[in-house]
């Protein structure tokens, strides 16, 4: 990856790309839909990545990588990794159909969703990946308390329901874990889905130097647990001994500034419950394997 891209100060998506490229190596073809990364390499004729890159329409990533893989198969080229690198909007919302079709067909490709939790490229509008309670330009607070009320869509669970061979959540604050999981995924044949927690200081209303710190806070309070699911078996890869309160994590970000105590308590309850469920899933699925 070259410098000189036009990402914002402290952009988490930059780390996401940088470590993805490090993990996957030069024999990789990448497809990027409309998202921050479509614009970040800069204006023609500049390119940021040293691998072949295809820009595609917003909702097409799953289909686009299916087409690339089919063409490589037709040509008998086997040792190239095909990767779709899309934002949360282009994956969980408009791109979900193509993603679902791609996974269901068992396509041998990797789909990476870098999650900055809103439509950041078009100016911070809400996506289904925006967490509950967040301010965005389309869920402004106003006098009607119009912040996002619905919970974040859980793409990992959706992928598990597709019986995907491998899916994992990773975070730019943990580059070693990122590289490990990406390289593991690369070696698996079939569809793989990786979700990267990529903080956006601009959209989350926080200082740019806090990007990595907020990743640690997210894992420490289980707002964004790091885990992998391989053939239905869960494994949490970072288990805090004791969960920190979610409000510490949320206090770092201006997009949660407006939340009254009762909402914070409600969110804490939900996060704790989700964590409990995840622990149980890990225990249960691992017990099936050991039998």
């Amino acid at each position, binding site marked *: 990856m070259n410098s000189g891209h036009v990402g914002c100060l*402290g952009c988490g998506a930059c780390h996401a790309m940088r470590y993805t490229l490090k993990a996957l190596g030069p024999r990789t073809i990448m497809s990027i839909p409309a998202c921050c990364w479509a614009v970040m390499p800069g204006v023609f*004729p500049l390119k940021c990545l040293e691998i072949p*890159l295809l820009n595609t329409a917003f909702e097409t990533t799953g289909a686009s990588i299916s087409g690339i893989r089919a063409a490589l198969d037709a040509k008998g080229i086997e040792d190239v990794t095909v990767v779709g690198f899309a934002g949360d909007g282009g994956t969980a919302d408009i791109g979900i159909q193509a993603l679902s079709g791609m996974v269901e067909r068992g396509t041998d490709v990797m789909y990476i969703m870098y999650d900055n939790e809103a439509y950041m490229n078009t100016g911070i509008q809400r996506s289904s990946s925006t967490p509950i309670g967040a301010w965005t330009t389309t869920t402004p607070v106003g006098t009607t308390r119009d912040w996002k009320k619905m919970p974040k869509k859980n793409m990992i669970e959706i992928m598990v329901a597709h019986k995907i061979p491998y899916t994992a959540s990773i975070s730019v604050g943990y580059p070693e874990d990122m590289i490990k999981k990406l390289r593991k995924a690369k070696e698996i044949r079939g569809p793989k889905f990786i979700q990267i927690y990529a903080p956006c200081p601009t959209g989350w209303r926080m200082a740019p130097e806090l990007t990595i710190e907020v990743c640690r806070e997210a894992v420490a309070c289980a707002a964004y647990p790091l885990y992998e699911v391989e053939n239905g078996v869960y494994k949490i890869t970072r288990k805090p001994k004791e969960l920190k309160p979610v409000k510490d994590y949320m206090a770092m970000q201006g997009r949660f500034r407006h939340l009254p105590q009762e909402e914070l308590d409600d969110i804490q309850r939900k996060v704790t419950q989700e964590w409990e469920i995840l622990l149980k899933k890990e225990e249960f699925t691992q017990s099936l394997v050991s039998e």
Partner: protein
Amino acid sequence: MSREELKKEFKTFEDLPLTPITSVPSSANQTGGWKTFRPVLDKEKCIKCHICWKFCPDVSIKAKEDEFPEFDYDHCKGCGICAYECPKDAIEMILEEESQ
């Protein structure tokens, strides 16, 4: 058109490739002008752990093994992650105007 034929200077539509095919490294775009603050290294405190290099989003820190990290001020945007993450507080963010 070969790679060399992909022109970097376009004078007319005929110089353009069929579709926008990009081949010029983006490092040609010097984003250093964006910064309000610039990172300055205190070599006395630096332990060469290279955590700063690890977390720079702009690929603007060069870190050779066993050497002090070097900042690429032509591209550094001054986000301050390196200073924040440095375990020894060896990096200070100072106002760009003051550093001139």
